[in-house]
């Protein structure tokens, strides 16, 4: 069977039922491809066994880049490229450079992190999402199980998902 084409979907109404169901389904040896929710459910990443995102590291590195660029720019422009005496102070005196350095640190950190988030999550304006169920963005939680990724038969998977508290068990096939 082809990968990423044929799915069994478990539809859940309640986030606590969903969390219990994820543990149950995973314990019975089924690999869950992904769970889709209308809002962030706390604890779902641990239940699914996801590793913590490394986006904070990206934010820190982009922030560091902002700090360095801001300092280099100000020191080079006023200290080396065209030194001017302003208020009798040193050409490149650090204290007045603090505000701009701070602002650029925040700016690059925020934009860099959000940009990274967009890229790793594949969010872009012209993207057509592959929706498992139209009600995901309304009020339903949907657990998607890729049939090609599991050795179990479709009927067994449907039974386990149905017993885990799902309100509906559906099939979904993509072209």
């Amino acid at each position, binding site marked *: 069977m082809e990968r990423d084409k044929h799915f069994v979907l478990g539809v859940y109404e309640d*986030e*606590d039922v969903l969390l219990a169901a994820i543990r149950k389904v995973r314990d019975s040896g089924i690999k869950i491809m*992904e*769970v*889709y*929710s*209308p*809002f*962030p*459910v*706390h*604890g*779902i*990443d641990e239940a699914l066994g*996801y590793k913590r*995102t490394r*986006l*904070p590291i990206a*934010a820190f590195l982009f922030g560091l880049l902002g700090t360095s660029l801001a300092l280099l*720019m100000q020191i080079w*422009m*006023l200290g080396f490229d*065209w030194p*001017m005496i302003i*208020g009798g*102070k040193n050409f490149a*005196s650090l204290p*007045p*450079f603090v*505000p*701009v350095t*701070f*602002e*650029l640190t*925040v*700016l690059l*950190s*925020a*934009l860099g*992190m*959000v940009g990274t*988030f967009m890229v*790793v*999550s*594949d*969010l*872009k*304006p*012209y*993207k*057509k*999402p*592959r*929706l498992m169920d*139209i*009600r*995901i*963005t*309304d*009020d339903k939680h949907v657990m998607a199980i890729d049939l090609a990724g599991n050795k179990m038969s479709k009927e067994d998977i449907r039974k386990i998902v149905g017993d885990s508290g799902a309100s509906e068990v559906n099939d979904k096939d993509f072209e």
Partner: protein
Amino acid sequence: MQVTSAVREDLVTGGKTVHDVTHDICRQVEGKPTKSWMLGMAISLGALGIGTYAVLALLWEGIGVWGLNKTVGWAWDITNFVWWVGIGHAGTLISAILLLFRQKWRMSINRAAEAMTIFAVICAACFPGLHMGRLWVGFYWALPLPNTWGSLWVNFNSPLLWDVFAISTYFTVSLVFWYIGLIPDFASIRDRATNKISKAVYGALSFGWDGAAKTWMRYESVALILAGLATPLVLSVHTIVSFDFATSVIPGWHTTIFPPYFVAGAIFSGFAMVLTLMLVTRKVYKLEDYITINHIELMNIIIIITGSIVGIAYITEFFIAWYSGVEAEQYAFINRATGPYWWAYATMMTCNVISPQLFWFKKIRTNIAATFILSIIVNIGMWFERFVIIVTSLHRDYLPSSWAMFYPTFYDVGVYLFTFGLFFTAFLLFAKFFPVINMAEVKSIIKSSSLKETK
């Protein structure tokens, strides 16, 4: 699993289900514009039209059309600038600082407050640009461009330049923060859309959001870090705005109390503007179950705290002027309170320090009409605060032969009107085409709210 203290009142009332949230908010976007919306839009566009005439005349003639003179070289332009920036502080404060403090009541007001922030910052940014008289020079006077483009590198020692960086960073980060929050809600509208145009538009706006748990996990991490970045940012912006005054040597401006005093004043006026707008939106869109009396009371409590901080700052300024023994400083403050601009000082004191104290009474802070009136009074007071700081410190120059008064012309009023038109036009467009409440966040607290309701 959400744990909420039993003493806390419900954040969402009326036993709403998750589907109700989607329906109640999306309905506003999907329906036809109402008569009251059309009327509001007509008034805003009218103001924008008259204002545009004033702006064009200003650009054509130069800032001589304003009532400025050689003594009072800064008046309504910078007053309006600081006023709008101050209003623009509530949105990011609500969404960032209240997120870090895990205050869940922020969830039904943060979207509209952030929108208000963005529009207010745009209005504020009009003034530094326009007060140069020639808008286009703003680019090579304010941006670090090579010497061959303008005169020289910009002066990084100047607080006016810090302002450029602070305001533009604040605007960009607030916009990004706001947009990230909007993506899942745009997806909700996309999936409910019935006609082709809205499917395509909201499809593009939602960036192909599919609600995957992995994306939600990253989304929450991004929101938390953006909040962590925006918190010092929001405090830095008005601090830097206050440096425009505090680093100068004008008596009445040269005070170290300015940064915290300005930040408190900004939060004060920002919350007042949020209340003014939300009380109307809540009524017109029938959102009483999402923005409850509880929300209004909590916002009023923040107003009374920040209003009292501002009051203490006024008194401290006066005391320090006397205690410093600097005659020029003492004169500046005596002149503020008893000179020809005493009425502006009295308005400021009444609106900012005395009237918000009425919120100590629970009856008043839970009364919608009283809150609405007081929220407008606060913003009138905050406008006068900036006017008092700016004009009364300047109008009695060092030499009595240079003493002058400031009288606004049609163009002073017109440019102010322009920003009002811009602000309300943008806000009305937002209220019609964007989800006014953060649906995804509100949905995450529905269960704990409705559980208590059914008990």
